[in-house]
């Protein structure tokens, strides 16, 4: 059963997964050029600077790609009001669980592409003493970020159904209003506290807010 769910997931999303994988691979490979490096052989500093500039894009890629990977298969099911999965001899929760894991598995492809890109970028430079490359760690972090975004999007879509857009808007609007109100009231501490809760370790979205580092001490 799961193999067939995975097969359909792949059939529906393979173009997007391939595109994500390509961008993930190219990001570290060409990062050194972003920092103004025109030499044929990049230096470690150029790569570090390039990734400081391009790093947040990995977070955005994980966020946007995962959102589409979670929502698109749902819309295909929704085209027929989920009649086919509901007519299969499995519980709805089991179907949804299999659909979730199938989508989560496809996230491995861009994460793997990023790992290969990281290795390739590191192989082009000579690391100075005391500096080390972390190609696997960066790729793993990308996978974690993608999983967080995917899980949130998937849960929102499957639990809220047609009301997902309204719920998503509320999830954006309510914190924004809280921040704005806190700013206007001069109670900046409250807004900061919420921000820290969400985006600082061990907050649920802290994986997005830390620097995307490939080379470090």
């Amino acid at each position, binding site marked *: *059963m799961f*193999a*067939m769910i995975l*097969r*359909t997931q792949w*059939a*529906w999303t393979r173009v997007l997964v391939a595109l994500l994988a390509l961008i993930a691979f190219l990001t570290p490979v060409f990062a050194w050029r972003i920092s103004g490096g025109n030499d044929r052989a990049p230096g470690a500093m150029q790569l570090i600077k390039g990734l400081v500039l391009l790093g947040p894009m990995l977070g955005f890629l994980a966020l946007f790609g995962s959102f589409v990977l979670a929502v698109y298969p749902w819309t*295909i099911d929704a*085209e*027929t009001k989920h*009649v*086919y999965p*509901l*007519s*299969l*001899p*499995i*519980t709805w929760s*089991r179907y949804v669980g299999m659909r979730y894991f199938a989508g989560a598995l496809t996230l491995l492809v861009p994460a793997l592409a990023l790992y290969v890109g990281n290795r390739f970028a590191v192989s082009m430079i000579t690391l100075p003493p005391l500096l080390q490359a972390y190609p696997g760690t960066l790729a793993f972090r990308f996978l974690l970020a993608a999983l967080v975004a995917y899980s949130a999007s998937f849960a929102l879509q499957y639990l809220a159904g047609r009301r997902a857009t309204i719920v998503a808007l509320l999830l954006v609007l309510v914190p924004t209003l809280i921040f704005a109100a806190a700013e206007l009231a001069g109670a900046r501490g409250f807004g900061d506290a919420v921000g820290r809760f969400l985006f600082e370790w061990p907050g649920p979205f802290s994986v997005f807010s830390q620097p995307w580092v490939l080379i470090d001490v």
Partner: protein
Amino acid sequence: MTDAIRIRDLTWRAGKEFALRDLSMTVPTGAIYGFLGPNGSGKTTTIRLMLGMLAPEHGTIDVLGHAMPKFAHRALAKIGYVPEVVHLYSRLTVDEAMRFHKAFFATFDDAEADRLRRRFGLREDQRIGALSKGESGKLMMLLALSQRAELLVLDEPTDGLDPVIRREVLSALVEYVDVHQATVFISSHLVHEQERICDWVGVMDGGRMVAELPMQEFRSGIKRLRVLNAPPTRDAMPFSVLSRDEISLHHEDWVVRGWQPEMREWFQRSGAELREIQDLDLEDSFVELLRGARGVTTEAR
């Protein structure tokens, strides 16, 4: 004989405009049950409730011995379902759809699926989204028949199909029932089609069950009577009056249900005269049944 489907006092509401009210239904095991009703009468909603896709507000539904919707996944393993509109994934090919379906139904018969695919003239590499309505209908029927279901639930399976394809689909269905003694629940508004294959009939209108009876009784028990000096009373009639139309000063046309020849005497006792008895075909019977249920004419049952 046990019942394949047993529904009691089912109530379900969708907003203020539509509701199923106190619906009860019994489909005997092995029957070919025709579920008749005009468009919008609640047939598809009843089927979705029956299959556990919707939860009733009130009442009980048992399908193949399983309480629905709680044990829907157990019942669905033995049910072949062909919905009103194509429910399969449009991006899959015919072959992929067959393999996908097989993965969920342990009883799926590959050889039978392939035989039916050839018989229906479907190519393995055809994409479902590119199939015509007739081809999609044939594919859905192929999947339902190949899973060796004990109960087939077919929602308007031949609606919009040309006569040749309709005949192909129905003959495959009849063959299947002959071989496997399956129960068939077939919803349609095509009355003549139901007449040919069904042995039980249920008629639905406006979210209510208007009648449920063996096809033979439905076919022969509804008559149009021309009555002279019709009595005004409704008391103690041995039959149900579905409609009563005044033709002239002393003549009335009655459409009655449950007619038996010995009931002529009732008219004599009432001082009326029964001038003529006309047989109604199934479509007229169906229409009169609905008129009666809607209270279109002066008298109700």
